[in-house]
């Protein structure tokens, strides 16, 4: 046998060995898998028993409550660290509007738009941007629409630029926008929305709400100051809040009024709000609601402060002294193709907002 032939034989022998090893490994994998399936089946059968299912459900519920509580507590902690001044950036409200700022365009009415819980950064989704453009064209020349305020962060900057969790949010947004797997994108979007839902919860909490709402009001006031707002020239500030933004608008209205020294009014669009916010000094609140909006209807049940069952809630007390303008739009849903930003309903919602502005401008 030649040297070349020996090498080929050696190679064949190696390949045969390798094939046997692979076959052996495959057999072992199949045996392990079979054993595993049997064990899983046995466990799965055991899981189907009533007692085990009840125990699993109980522990699952306990785990959910504990995790939700811990996440909520962490979120509150960030708000309170900001309040303590440990994260820097909480300005002295006495210094607001100290110097006359230059808004020589003659704006007297400032509409501040607070987006829903889908908001992840300062710029709005395309559909919301188109709605805001329509609104901007419809309002009077002496009114200015303020867009791009992140309603669910307390810092003057967005989540992407927060000092203590920048890496986390940048990574999350990148995954949300660019990951090829749809499930990962959905999961990241869910995390962003969960953060915003938590902020809505904190804003509506009777213990933590005042501090968080104050911080958001301060953020809005600083933004207004930056674009030339001054109490001596302005007539009013109108907070327009969509969905969870409605809670943020109602929560901050009284604080913003104190900080800006002008009347503040609220218009909610498909608003989900608690009715715990202190509205005693706010004269005008209007709700634009859709007749087919299940989210806003659910919000009313989730927050008993808006039900007549609790007559001493802030919302019910406010309604006894002021009149709420409730504008219902037939067929409108909370979002999507028949939501307030859709082509079908955008113009109607804008028309109602403008009408409300005219009614209350006197």
């Amino acid at each position, binding site marked *: 046998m030649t040297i070349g032939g020996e090498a080929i034989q050696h190679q064949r022998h190696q390949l045969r060995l390798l094939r046997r090893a692979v076959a052996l490994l495959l057999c072992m994998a199949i045996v392990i898998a079979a054993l595993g399936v049997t064990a899983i089946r046995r466990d799965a059968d055991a899981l189907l028993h009533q007692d085990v299912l009840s125990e699993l459900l109980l522990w699952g519920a306990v785990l959910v*409550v*504990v995790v*939700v*509580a*811990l996440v*909520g*507590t962490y*979120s*509150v*902690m960030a708000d*309170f660290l900001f*309040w*303590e001044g440990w994260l820097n950036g909480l300005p*002295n*409200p*006495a210094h607001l509007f100290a110097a006359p700022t230059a808004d020589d365009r003659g704006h007297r009415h400032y509409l501040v738009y607070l987006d829903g819980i889908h908001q992840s950064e300062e710029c709005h989704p395309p559909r919301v941007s188109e709605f805001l453009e329509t609104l901007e064209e419809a309002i009077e020349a002496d009114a200015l629409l303020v867009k791009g305020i992140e309603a669910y962060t307390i810092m003057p900057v967005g989540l992407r630029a927060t000092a203590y969790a920048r890496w986390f949010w940048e990574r999350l947004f990148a995954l949300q926008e660019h990951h090829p797997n749809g499930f990962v994108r959905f999961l990241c979007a869910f995390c962003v929305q969960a953060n915003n839902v*938590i902020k809505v*919860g*904190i804003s*509506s*909490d009777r*213990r*933590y709400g*005042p*501090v968080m709402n*104050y911080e958001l009001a301060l953020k809005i006031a600083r933004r207004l100051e930056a674009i030339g707002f001054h109490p001596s020239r302005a007539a009013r500030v109108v907070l327009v809040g969509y969905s969870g933004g409605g809670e943020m608008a109602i929560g901050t209205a009284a*604080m913003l009024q*104190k*900080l800006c020294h002008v009347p503040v009014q609220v218009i909610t669009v498909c608003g989900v709000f608690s009715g715990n916010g202190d509205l005693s000094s706010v004269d005008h609140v209007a709700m634009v609601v859709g007749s087919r909006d299940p989210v806003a209807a659910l919000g009313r049940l989730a927050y008993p402060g808006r039900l007549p069952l609790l007559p001493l809630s802030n919302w019910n007390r406010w309604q006894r002294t002021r009149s709420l303008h409730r504008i219902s739009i037939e067929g409108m849903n909370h979002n999507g193709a028949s939501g307030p930003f859709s082509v079908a309903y955008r113009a109607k919602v804008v028309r109602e907002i403008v009408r409300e502005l005219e009614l209350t401008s006197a």
Partner: protein
Amino acid sequence: MSGLTSALDSMASTLLAMDAGIGLLVAVGISMSASHLFALLANRLSPRQIAFHMLIDALVLSLALTLGILCHSLMLLLIEGVPPQPITLANRMLAALWPGLFYVLVAAPYVSDLIAVSLLGWMHLNVLLLLHARYGVPLTEGLLVSAPGFSLALVLIALLFAQRWRASYNTLAKEVGG
């Protein structure tokens, strides 16, 4: 119904087997005190002041729970004719407070009421079960025996928490007014 009875029996036997000392009372007080840590933060206190207030609050809350147990002792004397033995009763009833160790979770927003009501209800149920197991008081009569002590403890806890939050709102009002 039989499932509920066996669950209550199982809870009672667990409570009877528990060796709860005064440490549990203080631990529950600390957990309750920690649940309103943010009220102290909202008051703009320094870390040292916060630690001091938390300790004082923990002791006050433990005292409120002890007063509740003393009240049970009085009610047992009045209704069941059990001779007043507050220290023995406290030793026997302290185990009922163990769910209070999780009271710190009440600090969470939006689920706080659910957690607080569940934990307080659980503690109250434990008291009823222990009264039944130790003194043979039926559960319905136990409600009457434990109601004043439980109400007193709740009122004291609520007053302490309300005072702390009221002070924090005043701090906020000063900030905005300034």
